[in-house]
């Protein structure tokens, strides 16, 4: 799994490429942590175009930040998810707690 991050103004964009399993989920955790700790960030975008698969460990990482993001009024939006990956979020019910949209444009318009 490869993970990269760039900042565009007050947006922190994380791009994930590959599979997020138990061992690689710690890097995702680190990125989100960095994003939250960075100054002047109010929107974390996660580009999931190249995200193949996400395990329960990966889901756990996202879900663990939900309350903190709400507290700090930081938005998190996932976009570009494949049907398969989106379905996983939906079954778990995470789509009601996190913003999942089609593409970056839609994400930025939030």
């Amino acid at each position, binding site marked *: 799994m490869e993970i990269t991050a760039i900042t565009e103004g007050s947006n922190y964009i994380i791009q994930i490429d590959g599979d997020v399993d138990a061992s690689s989920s710690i890097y995702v955790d680190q990125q989100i942590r960095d994003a939250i700790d960075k100054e002047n960030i109010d929107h974390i975008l996660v580009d999931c175009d190249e995200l193949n698969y996400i395990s*329960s*460990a990966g889901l*756990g990482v996202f879900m663990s930040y939900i309350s903190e993001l709400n507290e700090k009024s930081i938005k998190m939006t996932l976009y570009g998810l494949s049907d398969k990956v989106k379905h996983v979020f939906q079954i*778990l*019910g*995470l789509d009601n707690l996190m913003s999942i949209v089609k593409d970056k444009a839609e994400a930025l318009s939030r």
Partner: protein
Amino acid sequence: MTNNQNIARLYLSGSIISWLVFFVITFYSSIDGGFDQVHASRYVSPFYRDAFFNLFILLSFLYFKAKSEAVIGTNFNDLLWDGFMTSSLMIVALVLNQQLSYLDVEFFKEDIFKNTIYAVNGLFLFVFIGKIFFVFKKLILYQKSKKLLFGWNLYEILLAVCLVISHFEIDHFHLNTLIFVGALAIYGLILSMNMNWVAYLNFKQKLKGALLLFIILFITGTFMYYLYTHSHLIENPENRILVNDISQHFFVIVIFLFIMFYCIASILVILFNLPTSSVFEQKLGEVFNFQKLSQSIRTTKDEREIYDVLLEISVHTALADGAWLEIADRQKKYKAFLNYQLEKYDAFELKKLFKRNNQDIKGNYQYFSNLSKMKYYDRLIDNPAKSVLTFPLYTSNKFIGVLGLIKHIPDGFNTESIEIIKSFVGQASVSIENSRLLNEAIQNERYKEELKIAKTVQENLLPKLLTFDKKIEISALSIPADDVGGDYYDTFDVADEVIGVIIGDVSGHGTSAAFNMAQVKGVFQGLMQQVSSPDEILTMANRALSNCLNAQSFVTITVLMIDLKNGLINVARGGHCPTLFYNSNAGEADFLNIKGLGLGILRDESYKDFVQSYTCEIKQGDQIMLYTDGVVEAVGSDGNDYGYERIKEKFQGNINLNSQEIIDIVKRDVLEFCGTTKLEDDFTLLCIKIL
């Protein structure tokens, strides 16, 4: 050893008795005026006198031999000290004894008295030579070979022969006898060319030893002088009074020559070895250091101890003024840094210097004999190092660190140390690697044990027997993957003709998954008996589990209540895979689309807004299938998931079979789809048939 002690005592008593007899005879022989008297009234044949004298010599030597053999363990200085004490005692005794004859007392001037004094002095003399002879024997035989031992035993036998000859050769000097005695003396001198013991003393001990030997030599000389001045061979009328003349005893001559020669030779050898003793000590020191390193390797589990020992002995061996040691861990990342009499900053500056000069200190050992000749040397500020030795630590081609030794002068190291330190470094590297492998193996074992325990716990949490009722048929199959995963299911006799069924996925790793499952089981076992509505059950379970699940863990559950009395089912879906329901009227199976959320995701009261209960009627012929994501997410040989469509097909297509058969068919289909006999994830299927 008491046998030996008894023998020694025997010899001692024998020699004392012999001497006493000899003394008495001497006393009598000298009453009427000594040597020249042939026809004195109490004259006793010299033969008997000499016989007892020689017997005394023989038995006293045998006594000293037995005594010395009883003592084991060679402390050279102690030996010499022992010899020195005896010699001093004897010479003092002789001097004091001799003083008596100078006293201005009438009786003391008599011939008898002079003879008795001489005889007593003779006793002292023989104690001296007996003791010293066997002290030297021990020194000579320190590193004995078979040949040397044989040679020495032969010498002792020949000495005994010499003693016998001396007995019969008094006053008669045959040429053959002289040749024999001369040859024996030379043989003794040759044997005494064994002074290996000198090399094992350190400088101080050598000096002490030389001093003791010198004093012993002086005492020997004194005894010899005494014999000479009281000898018949010199023109002194005084000496004619003496009935016995030890100075002409061949045995005595041979022994004295031996003792004197060994003293002189040992002293010279010690003195000439003094300058080189530091080298020998150093070599011995290196051997001890090796032992020390091996010792620490065998007993330590902590790598740090190895670092400390390696640094210490390398500095000691190379006589370095300072040193540093850096170690990398298995991922080649910095792990430890030790330094001795050298600032960390200075060590890094040195490494930078070497790098700038394109010198690779990680590839092979390096000797920088003069730093000032290197480029960029002027950039070093106040660095004490003028010459540097570096050694890389390697194990099976893996670089694990560098040892650096510095000296405050250029050309400070000698190349001999390099070889020894290379072997220290090699030893230490191996043991560091071994220690790491050992720790890894132990950790792996521990981890494997943990997994085993967790697996056992989890297996025991799943039900052995499912609820039994004549109106319903329930079958289940759960195949855990190798890793400890977390599929969970259970059935409950909730009330009269009401059956509860739960299926879920407790994710996590190793022991934490097992603990989570135990908590889930506990929570639901309580709730299923108390609460009838599935969505309420989920809400309460979420509240309970929110406190005990760790931050990134969650649980997915489907709660199903089957009311057989009223023909109803009530379902709530806590983020779990949707339940498959076959409606016998419609003749179709479909997934129940129920809003839900996994447990442990929203850990406050808002959870209840995200779950709902779904109710529908059931009748005979209806069937329900519950499963976990290990079924639908099983990856096929073409890379696709098994998926929801396939399980629906298989379920629907085999609806007339009993629940166990349906489960088996689905399982076989999944395995065929994956093209394997073993599945990657936990696999659980429940099939419920309403009869």
